[in-house]
């Protein structure tokens, strides 16, 4: 799928400081279009994860404009904000499945935001269309045969694919993945990243993915954004990126 004309997620001049001396984000601009996977590279503490969390205001940014699914999220509040947040699904490094529940239940939890009232109180009462979406999401990540297995019995790679299925079940337009493969072995990391890339290209979702592995970013991303000290320092396609640029990103860490 060719990238569409308007971005699913657009961030302009995003600023955030936890302490006065050391701002984490100093005016970041990024766009993520439907149908593409954007990799965000950067050293520890460069502001990558804060960027993702600020984008859906899990952390409140100090200033900046954020458009999600064509709507302004920066000024939304209350139920509007919750409604808008549902347009972006998060995938975490530590996976965060509910351990004592089955894979299928965990996937269905992604839809909680759109199930109202008493039907959301128990999995057994979830509407049939939500269960159907959960099954299809689990099939999409190739784990339908693990549906009734408890989350704590899955391998790390399987658990992260279930978490991706949970994000799919949320039916968001954007997936924000925060180091989704950092706790996985290389083989499982490949599986999860190729899955995310395929979801972007085949299903037309906009995927932003914070990574620590430049080689994976080169192979799976459509665009690579480098962040250092809270600023975008480069934005390249995998074909045009230079080794020196990537190496430079991590140099700051040496004296930090």
């Amino acid at each position, binding site marked *: 799928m060719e990238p569409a004309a308007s971005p699913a997620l657009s961030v302009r001049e995003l600023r955030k400081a936890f302490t006065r001396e050391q701002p984490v984000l100093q005016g970041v601009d990024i766009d993520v279009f439907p149908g593409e996977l954007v990799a965000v590279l950067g050293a520890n503490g460069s502001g990558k994860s804060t960027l993702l969390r600020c984008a*859906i205001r*899990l952390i409140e940014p100090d200033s900046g404009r954020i458009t999600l699914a064509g709507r302004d999220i920066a000024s939304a509040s209350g139920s509007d904000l*919750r*409604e808008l*947040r*549902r347009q972006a*699904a*998060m995938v*975490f490094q*530590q*996976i*965060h*499945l*509910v*351990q*004592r*529940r089955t894979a299928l239940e965990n996937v269905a*939890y*992604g*839809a*909680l*935001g*759109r*199930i109202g009232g008493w039907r*959301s*109180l*128990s*999995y057994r009462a979830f509407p049939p269309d939500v269960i159907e979406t959960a099954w299809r999401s689990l099939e999409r990540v190739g784990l339908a045969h693990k549906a009734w297995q408890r989350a704590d019995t899955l391998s790390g790679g399987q658990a992260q694919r279930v*978490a991706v299925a*949970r994000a799919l079940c*949320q039916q968001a337009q954007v997936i924000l993945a925060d180091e989704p493969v950092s706790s996985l072995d290389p083989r499982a990391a490949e599986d999860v990243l190729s899955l995310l890339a395929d979801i972007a290209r085949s299903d037309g979702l906009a995927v932003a993915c914070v990574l620590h592995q430049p080689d994976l970013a080169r192979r799976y991303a459509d665009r690579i954004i480098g962040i250092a000290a809270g600023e975008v320092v480069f934005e390249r396609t995998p074909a045009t990126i230079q080794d020196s640029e990537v190496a430079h990103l991590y140099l700051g860490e040496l004296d930090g």
Partner: protein
Amino acid sequence: MASSPAAVGRPARSKPGIVRKLIWLAIAGGAAAIYWHAWNDIGGSITDLFSSIGNLWDLIRRSTPPNTAIFHESVNASITTLDTALIGTTIGLVLSLLITPFAARNLSPHRLVYEAARVVIAFTRTIPSFIFALYMVVVVGLGPYPVALALAIHSVGTLGKLFAETIEDMDMGPVNALRAAGASRMQVFLHAVLPGVAPSFVSLSLYRFDVNVRDSLAAGFVGGAGIGFLLFNSIQLFQYKDAAMELTVMLVLLLAVERISTLLRARIV
């Protein structure tokens, strides 16, 4: 030279030895004074204990053999005691589940709500259940019912505190994941918090039931219910053979409940 080069930079203790000895002496003296006061306050006397050993022997003689004629009555009363603890624990469990989300620092919607929930828990936990039983007798009359209500109130505090602490120690990852997916507070509690803490909650509730069976005996004295009340009456009326039977049944009951509760809890966690 006596001191090695490394010892040069070693600082002396801030207080000299004699001062530290005096402090310890003062602490020991203070403790001794408190114990002396306490022993006198309770009228403690070692000679009394030895001179009244005959009374103890007489008590044992008058208690044997236990009166088997009241065996059935004792068993029935024991079942009432168990029922009281069961209903009391269950009501307490439901109420404490309602208050727990507000009493856990990491889930409570506001600090004032948290403090208010903590006050309720502290109040119900600090006052012993037999005191609540005294008041409940005034409200609903004598019998097992006021005792069950008293146990329920006290359990709100004890279970609520332990539940809240369990939640404060839990992994917040799934909670944050569901919040990010747009789930409401209620949904997060039901689907992310409860599954994580359920085994601990079941274990704590079983333990509370175990404790409540014993509390139900003591509260039975004042509430007029169960095996505790029978025992209390028998002793008051000098029916020591009856009391011995009741005590035996009670002991078997308590040991059985404790054993079963321990076995169940070992299987859960």
